[in-house]
């Protein structure tokens, strides 16, 4: 069975329609499960995917977004975990789906027990400061923070999130010291930065565009391997001489445990076609996202290595890792 | 002196005493649990900070309360007397609610809610069985039509599909 899946995956990746051969097509509404409320990252992403799929008529049935919020993704994960073998429900994962089982006793399922279908994108991120602050690059900030330990503050979300992990790796590499302050919602984080209560904020570029255009926020570094097309002037950390690993933020589709092979193959085929479509490319461009399409054996490998990478970073940061 | 303490023990409101004692126990539990988490971190109060103080406050206040209660008794001031008359039907009604909550999943909303209402109207309010059945079926169906059919709320369904 494994070999068959691999074959399907590689076919799908090559863009060959393998769908009909497997003989599964949805017969009723398909639930797109997300772990955030309407308007937050995962919900927006699922709506984006559903929009492109519907526009290109890739799925013959209605796609319905189902929000199961709570516990930073735990509620959605355990909900999906209880739907073993279900054929008309898929969910959208982000890095918290990998991190939660590592640090939460309440987490009953891991990504390995669920059925990862495809990684779709890698979300870039940028380092930003208020426009009236003295720092023009991340290097400026780090040098300043070295001289004034624990003086500056970075706003962000949960301490197991990417923003804090990035802080930890930079602190470790440079010896600089600054505080991390959690705020529960993106709106409060941006408000804290604009109001001068925090000095630094790591965000997804789409979140910042308007504030940057209005001259209120400045991007001081790209946190990816390359500069972002939208901010050609913001150099990468490596260019600025700060050598730290890039922490990817994946988003993709995951099925319930024991998802039938033909259902998995169906989605691999559909998504393979979707990522080739013009609408998808436009969507990525509009929201400043990077294509990160990955299925089959590569995805299995990614799941393994990403889990390990997150575990290491969390341990470094002093978070108690359970698994 | 011992006689006075016996008198005080006799006159103290036992429900108030039990309530204060259970609150103090809850407070102690909160304090105990909170010691498992960091009280102060490098950056400020840790996750154990608030629970510790909240737990302490609950303990102190409940002891205070019963103290004032006793003090008022000694001064022969009027105190709150807990009246438990008519609690039996209340507990019966509550038990019925919990049973119906347990039935929600296996038999669905309509059946479990109808059973709850029939019990309340027939046994607690002592209306006729016909009235009980009418209210039970009527309200359950009414809710079903309003919330499920018109507003698209999803409620648990039984094996028969409603």
């Amino acid at each position: 069975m494994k070999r068959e899946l691999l074959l399907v995956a590689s076919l799908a990746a090559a863009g060959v329609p393998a769908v009909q051969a497997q003989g599964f097509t949805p017969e009723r509404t398909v639930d797109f499960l997300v772990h955030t409320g309407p308007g937050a990252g995962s919900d927006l992403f699922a709506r984006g995917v559903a929009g492109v799929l519907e526009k290109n008529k890739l799925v013959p049935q209605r796609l319905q977004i189902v929000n199961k919020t709570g516990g930073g993704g735990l509620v959605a994960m355990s909900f999906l975990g209880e739907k073993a073998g279900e054929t008309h429900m898929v969910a959208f994962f982000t890095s918290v789906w990998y991190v939660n089982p590592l640090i939460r006793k309440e987490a009953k399922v891991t990504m390995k027990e669920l059925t990862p279908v495809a990684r779709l994108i890698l979300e870039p991120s940028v380092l930003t400061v208020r426009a009236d602050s003295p720092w023009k690059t991340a290097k400026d900030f780090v040098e300043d923070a070295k001289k004034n330990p624990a003086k500056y503050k970075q706003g962000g979300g949960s301490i197991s999130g990417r923003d804090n992990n990035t802080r930890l790796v930079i602190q470790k590499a440079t010896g600089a010291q600054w505080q991390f302050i959690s705020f529960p919602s993106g709106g409060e984080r941006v408000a804290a930065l604009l109001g001068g209560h925090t000095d630094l904020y790591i965000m997804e570029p789409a979140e910042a565009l308007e504030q940057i255009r209005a001259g209120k926020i400045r991007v001081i570094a790209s946190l990816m391997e390359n500069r972002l097309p939208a901010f050609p002037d913001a150099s990468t950390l490596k260019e600025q001489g700060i050598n730290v690993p890039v922490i990817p933020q994946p988003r993709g589709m995951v099925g319930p445990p024991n998802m039938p092979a033909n259902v998995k193959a169906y989605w691999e085929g559909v998504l393979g076609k979707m990522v080739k479509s013009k609408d998808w490319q436009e969507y990525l461009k509009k929201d400043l996202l990077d294509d990160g399409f990955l299925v089959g054996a590569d995805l299995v490998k990614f799941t393994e290595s990403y889990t390990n990478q997150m575990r290491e970073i969390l341990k470094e940061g002093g978070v108690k890792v359970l698994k | 002196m011992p006689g006075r303490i016996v008198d005080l023990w006799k006159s103290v409101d036992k429900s108030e005493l039990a309530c204060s004692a259970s609150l103090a126990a809850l407070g102690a539990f909160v304090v105990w649990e909170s010691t498992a988490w960091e009280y102060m971190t490098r950056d400020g109060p840790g996750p154990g900070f608030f629970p510790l103080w909240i737990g302490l406050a609950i303990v102190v206040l409940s002891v205070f309360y019963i103290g004032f209660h006793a003090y008022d008794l000694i001064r022969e001031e009027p105190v709150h007397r807990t009246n438990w008359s008519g609690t039996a039907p209340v507990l019966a009604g509550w038990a019925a609610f919990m049973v119906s909550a347990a039935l929600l999943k296996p038999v669905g909303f309509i059946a479990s809610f109808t059973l709850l209402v029939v019990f309340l109207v027939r046994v607690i309010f002592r209306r006729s069985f016909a009235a009980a059945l009418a209210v039970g079926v009527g309200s359950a169906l009414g809710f079903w039509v309003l919330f499920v059919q018109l507003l698209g709320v999803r409620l648990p369904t039984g094996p028969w599909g409603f």
Partner: protein
Amino acid sequence: MEMLAGLMQGFAVALEPMNLFWCFVGVFFGTVVGILPGLGPSATVALLLPLTAQMNPTAGLIMMSGIYYGAKYGGSTTSILLNVPGESASVVTCIDGFEMAKRGRAGPALGIAAISSFVAGTVGVLLLMLIAPPVAEFALRFGPPEYFALMVLGLSMVVLLAGKSLIKALLAMFIGLWLATIGVDLFTDNARFTFDRVELVDGVHFVVVAIGTFAIGEVLANLTHKDGGQMFEVPKGLRNLMPNWQDIKDSRFAFLNGSLVGFFIGVLPGAGSTIASFVSYGIEKAVSRHPEKFGTGAVEGVAAPEAANNSETGGALVPLLTLGIPGSATTAILLVALIMWGMRPGPMLIQDHPTIFWGLVASMYIGNVMLLILNLPLVPLFAQVLRLPAYVLYPVILGVSIIGVYSVDERLFDVWMVGGFGLLGYLMRRLDYPAAPLILGLVLGDFMERALRQSLMMSAGDLSIIYTRPMAVTMLFLAVAILLTPMFRRANAWRLKAAEQEI
């Protein structure tokens, strides 16, 4: 002048027949979902999100905002009639609203709720139009230390919510504060008091506690009256089903107080209408000439929180429209909608898309008038609900509660919890513990803990950050003043008594 031109342009947009139609659809739907507990405006707006993608942005925004502020009108109905708080902001309305209903004044209570909603809703839009940009700057200056001070001020209201015993009120509040700590700690990812249950990872949902202690507790407490006949008098005649002139006169200050408090707290991202409703109720009672009437059916006790709840809408739109920052669940979805229509909400939105902003403002004036016209005739109708005998009304309350709680997250666990809190509510009634402080602690506790810890992280552990910032100090001072009033009163009473005995 520029504003006047903008407003004229806005009315021209809002009065287009199609926009008027969508405005009406929005406020109508809003009223319906507001009346039904558990179905909040944020869930409804989210549900309609895919449908509005095809609409013209102005019409879509007008409709979705209509749902938002329309729901606030309906929210008080079940609080007053059934003691079931339909949404978090209506808990305070239960206190005096349901007492009024028990005394046969359900009609006036519902009527005053509609009128104060209208007044405050209009004031909220007016303030949104006049002072949005400066107020947005003010909101940004409000950092964690100020939030902490605001929460302390909110918690000091416990003094005003207390019944005979202040200690009991404090105990109830601390239990609420404890309930607020349940769940995963934002700062350290420690799970606190979750007993390894996934359902508790996000904490206890406030609707579960409110419906349990208020509605289920009320039903249980009344199962002792075995006859099951009609519960309260419902006076005949339309005159008795509407607020009279005296009610409106008594509520004048409450309208103003609620409108201002609601707007300014609404502007703060994350704070929201629940806090606004508690604070305005507290202020109302603190300045009242007859504070003893509160909790026994004072009409101002309904008017103030309902006003705060409604002008909060205008306030919450300020950071969304001027900064692109959503301050609440519903405005977050409005933000999604704006992005979906190809707009980028941010500091430039009003300049870039004046028709949208002014069209929305004008439509909110119109929508509030529509809501008043829609809601007032419903008042006598709804008041008739209380004519039902107890053996019909109580099952209805239970059903509404079960569905309301279940529909929040579709979890049976919540139905169990609401039963548990119902029993707690009953015990609290019998033991004379007030329920409102419990809710107060639960709603504000999480916020207060977060704000204090954020503040101390900002200052690297230096406590002076809290008492060196002017706004924070002012609020803390007010809080202390409120906390000390009962002690002064008691000392005063004791002194008078001592003086009497001497004579």
